[in-house]
């Protein structure tokens, strides 16, 4: 009998306690925000879309190798002698034309592993998070600021240069041996 009324009492009292709490919360200001109008404040270390400052990129391919999902693809073209590519902002000399630098954000897992090995700090994460697209192809970002023709031109230049060198080498091959050894390290 005592248990019977005890049950009724605990049921009603705990329900009452719960109702008191929810009622109190009716007057607590909302913690949510009206998103597109009000934007959340993002901390400085926010890890969102990657950005590549291509002017600083030396084409070392370290970020691409660090990436666990292989979303960065880099194609570099060696500059032919006589071309001056300038220096990066921290004083490294550039020796490669970056003819292709694409990041597939459909694959990117935002792990930041590519950011740390970069010797010139040219790849970093920004706080841009609104970049949804209707098509996957649109998530393939190309960071190179050369036009299509310019890239082709660089490739052609190198091919021409290599061809010339090859011809030179062939010419050299018909001559005495020791000169070939000299050429080999350059070819690498």
């Amino acid at each position: 009998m005592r248990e019977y009324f005890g049950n009724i009492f605990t049921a009603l009292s705990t329900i009452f306690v719960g109702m008191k709490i929810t009622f109190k919360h009716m007057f607590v200001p909302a913690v949510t925000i009206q998103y597109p109008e009000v934007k959340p404040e993002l901390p400085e270390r926010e890890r969102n879309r990657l950005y590549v400052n291509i002017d600083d990129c030396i084409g070392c391919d370290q970020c691409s190798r660090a990436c666990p999902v292989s979303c960065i693809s880099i194609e570099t073209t060696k500059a032919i002698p006589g071309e001056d590519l300038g220096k990066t902002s921290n004083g490294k000399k550039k020796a490669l034309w970056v003819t292709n630098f694409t990041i597939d954000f459909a694959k990117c897992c935002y792990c930041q592993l590519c950011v740390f090995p970069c010797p010139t700090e040219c790849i970093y994460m920004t706080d841009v998070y609104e970049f949804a697209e209707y098509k996957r192809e649109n998530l393939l970002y190309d960071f190179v600021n050369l036009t299509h023709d310019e890239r082709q031109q660089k490739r052609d230049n190198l091919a021409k240069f290599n061809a010339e060198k090859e011809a030179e080498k062939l010419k050299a091959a018909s001559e005495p041996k020791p000169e070939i050894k000299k050429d080999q390290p350059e070819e690498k």
Partner: protein
Amino acid sequence: MMYDFFVDLFGSSTLAGIISGLIQAFLPLFTFILPFALFAVWLERKVSAHMQDRLGPMRVGWHGWKQTIADILKLIQKEDIVAKDNDKLLFNIAPVLTFAGSYAAFAAIPFSGYFIGTELDLGVFYIVAVTGLVVAGILMAGWASNNKYSLLGSMRSVAQIVSYEIPTMLVLLSLVMISGTMSLHTLSEMQTGYIWNWFILGGPGFTLSKFLLIPLMFTGFLIIYISTLAEVNRTPFDIPEAESELVSGYHTEYSGMKFAMFFLAEYANMFAVSAIVAAVFFGGYQSPFGYLGNLVGAEWLIPVEQFFWFTAKGLFFVFVQMWLRWTLPRLRVDQLMTTSWKYLIPIAFVNLILIGLITLL
């Protein structure tokens, strides 16, 4: 009035009867039930949002008040999906029947002394009986869906509603014993005057029995409120549509307008049962402290005030239903039966006997 008008118009009393009947039948639907259901859905969202420190719908209209209208428009446009193995006939009838049950209950609800669908002598009985139709609709829906979750949900629902009708009836019976009437209109009229004439405070008159009745009336009120909660499948008794167990119970397979009918029926039902509680215990449409209309001598104001008071009381109980929903977990099906058969029914029965003894005084 309307009948005469149509007789003049068509010259045929049969046609006029049908048309005026139809209009009279659909008038409350479009003037009260539909707007109320839309409002209640919006209220539910806002109440839940604010209880959870959220904002709820904010985009469509001021604080999102047009949100439910948009939702209903969306539901109407949606494709009506009927699965291959559904029992087509029952599947289509079920939402109509469910809605009809809750809709018919509004016929006997006294919104004010002047506006009442039909002044039935058996108003209380009628409402309880007609809301029983909902059970049939739910069972049909569960069976016709040919879905195990729906079937489980509808069986639970039937078990629940059938067991909770008993405490409801017992409490209403005790009220009938005091008042000697089953008409909701008469019951409301008896509680006229001031707040202390309400049945929750022992009813009209100042006798010893009034004071003896007060605790019994509170118990009765708690019982009827709890059991009506169960009858309209609200938390903590929402096991027929327990979304975490049975996905959404008997209306899992429904979409579009048929789903909307279940949805509207649920909210219409919420008001119907709240209205019964308000009518029998809380003075019905009577104001707690006299009428402004009497004070300023404007007779026409009284029905408006009465309507206001009735809706306000009904809405308050609807609000408490929502408040409970967003506070409590839900019971299990056997605990639900325990609550009814071991707690509510015996207490309601003892309550009935005690009230009977007091009325003999």
